[in-house]
């Protein structure tokens, strides 16, 4: 297994390594893949059945909604969007951290991303699945969802491309497709490794098919590298565009509290913030469960906490600008919306949001907080809650006080609303547990490359020390 720490060179600025010890390629392969051959343990089955049960609840409630109608939800006029869109924005925002980690950090040559990118990309995919189902259900007649796409129909009606909602369809479906391709391209070499270390012929065959017969040829690696880098390159503007387009759903409306130019950057920062929080929520238990501590070290977790601290300030800036502009504009409707957020019926949710998104992450200024597993896990949960509250605040508080006081109405979620929301966790959990069971959760080939680079660096360092 991994060699002792004496071979590791110690950089005073980077005391915690991104990879513990100097593992050989063989030990990397085994430590990252062996758990996949083991029979699923009791804990896994317990989690899986729980997730599957919740998925059942989700499916049942979707059927109920489709059969009876959107009236089963708490939506009303003027609060026409409510849970369906809150949860859509929340889930899709969560997905963005995956792309950020895998694409943007790759472009910035942040080596620490290597151990967590596969994990985060899988999270992206499943979060987008959960997100995409909400607007479709919210259509009212979800079986006609294909009307959203421009296809030559007999009625000769086309989608209206000057509407932000159509942009959303294009953005989210492109995002899902590109994320899936990026994830799969990264997986191909690892699936080939799985084919080659698998013992049973059946597994060999299955992984053989999914690896497309990859044989690690240098010629293929050259194309692979170039493709992987370019996919990362185009995924970066894509992820920014997706949440920008999501924010356009609001910003192109004239509603006070929505009609503001700060929305695109504010939404993107919020997306990254909540996404990192969810990666943290999932990775802290998973690294323990699958013994990945040597590959996903405290360094990764600490860096993620720093990203959360930074993005927390960006969202805080968003809140501040919203309030400032409302006051500065002198527009009574805008001023009222902000006043109502702080003091109206939904004020507790607003203040919970402030606590979770602005105050709680400030603890990450302290190294003790950034490196305590339990503490960061709790804060990551709080951020998830806070970001959900943010979307609630944006959508519901802006809608429930219309321009005309005669149409004011509060929103109360029904049990179907809440059930569907909880149910999507089941769907997400089921997909995620299946991923952990059948696919390497850490990019094996990339960790080997990282180990090789670190070895070279260490040798350089030793030579430099020997010379001086």
């Amino acid at each position: 297994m991994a060699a002792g720490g004496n071979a590791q060179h110690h950089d005073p600025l980077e005391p915690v390594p991104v990879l513990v010890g100097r593992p050989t390629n063989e030990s990397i392969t085994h430590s990252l893949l062996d758990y996949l051959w083991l029979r699923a343990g009791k804990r896994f089955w317990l989690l899986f059945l729980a997730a599957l049960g919740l998925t059942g609840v989700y499916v049942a409630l979707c059927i109920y909604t489709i059969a009876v109608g959107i009236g089963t939800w708490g939506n009303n006029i003027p609060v026409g969007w409510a849970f369906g869109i809150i949860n859509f924005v929340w889930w899709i925002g969560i997905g963005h951290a995956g792309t950020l980690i895998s694409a943007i950090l790759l472009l910035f040559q942040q080596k620490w991303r290597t151990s967590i990118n596969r994990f985060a990309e899988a999270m992206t995919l499943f979060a987008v699945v959960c997100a995409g189902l909400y607007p479709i259900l919210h259509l009212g007649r979800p079986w006609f969802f294909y009307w959203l796409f421009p296809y030559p129909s007999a009625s000769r009606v086309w989608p209206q491309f000057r509407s932000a909602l159509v942009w959303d369809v294009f953005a989210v479906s492109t995002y899902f497709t590109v994320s899936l391709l990026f994830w799969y391209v990264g997986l191909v070499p690892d699936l080939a490794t799985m084919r080659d270390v698998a013992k049973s012929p059946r597994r060999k065959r299955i992984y053989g098919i999914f690896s497309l017969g990859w044989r690690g040829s240098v010629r293929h690696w050259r194309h692979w590298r170039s493709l992987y880098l370019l996919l990362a390159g185009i995924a970066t503007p894509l992820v920014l565009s997706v949440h920008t387009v999501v924010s356009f759903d609001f910003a192109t409306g004239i509603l006070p509290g929505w009609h503001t130019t700060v929305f695109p950057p504010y939404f993107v920062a919020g997306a990254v913030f909540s996404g990192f929080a969810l990666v943290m929520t999932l990775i802290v238990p998973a690294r323990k469960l699958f013994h990945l501590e040597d590959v996903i070290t405290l360094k990764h977790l600490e860096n993620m906490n720093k990203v959360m601290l930074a993005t927390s300030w960006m969202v805080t800036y968003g809140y501040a600008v919203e309030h400032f502009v409302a006051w500065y504009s002198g527009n009574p409707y805008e001023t009222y919306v902000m006043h109502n957020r702080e003091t109206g019926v939904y004020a507790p949710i607003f203040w919970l949001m402030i606590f979770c998104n602005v105050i709680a992450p400030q603890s990450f200024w302290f190294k003790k907080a950034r490196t305590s597993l339990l503490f960061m896990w709790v804060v990551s949960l709080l951020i998830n809650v806070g970001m959900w509250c943010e979307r609630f605040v944006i959508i519901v508080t802006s809608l429930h006080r219309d321009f005309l006081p005669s149409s004011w109405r509060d929103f109360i979620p029904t049990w179907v609303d809440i059930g569907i929301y909880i149910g999507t966790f089941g769907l997400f959990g089921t997909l995620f547990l299946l991923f952990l069971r059948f696919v390497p959760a850490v990019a094996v080939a990339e960790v080997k490359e990282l180990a090789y680079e670190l070895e070279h660096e260490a040798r350089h360092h030793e030579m430099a020390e020997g010379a001086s």
Partner: protein
Amino acid sequence: MIRFVLGEVKHPDVAIDVARAIAKLGVGEVDGFGPFPVPGWDDAMKLPKSRVPLIMLCGGLTGVFVGFFLQWLTNGWDYPINVAGRPLVSAPAFIPATFEMGILFAAISGVLGFIALCGLPRVWHPLFEVPGFERATVDRFFVSVRLTDPDADTTPIVRAFEELGARVTVVEVETKA
């Protein structure tokens, strides 16, 4: 009949040296196999630039044109809706979908191009029959020379391999490979 001369080494840096030595001999088609993209190995083999970027650029530009044309066709020509006298073909409003289509086409054409350039999917390859070759995706590094001429002499290749400490196997394949 086609022959492969295959040399196996344990360290990627040695594999690069082997690839260089074999390239100097100038015989057959040289390839290398390893569990990760070793920096410098492809350059040592003097491989041409990958055409994936070009394919993606063409795909992306096609997507942009298709995307914009689609919107112009549907909203500007086939089904115009007058919304308070605003222009039917309004480029700013068409940008998001155009951009997304560009990205989508670039990604799909990139992946398809990559698969085609690599000659995948190909679930069987003659080298898979070599015992130990399965470690090419785990922890071993291989350099192969593909010889199509049945009379070609393998001894200089084998010698070059052995000088650098590689374990050598010669594989004969009856079919075209």
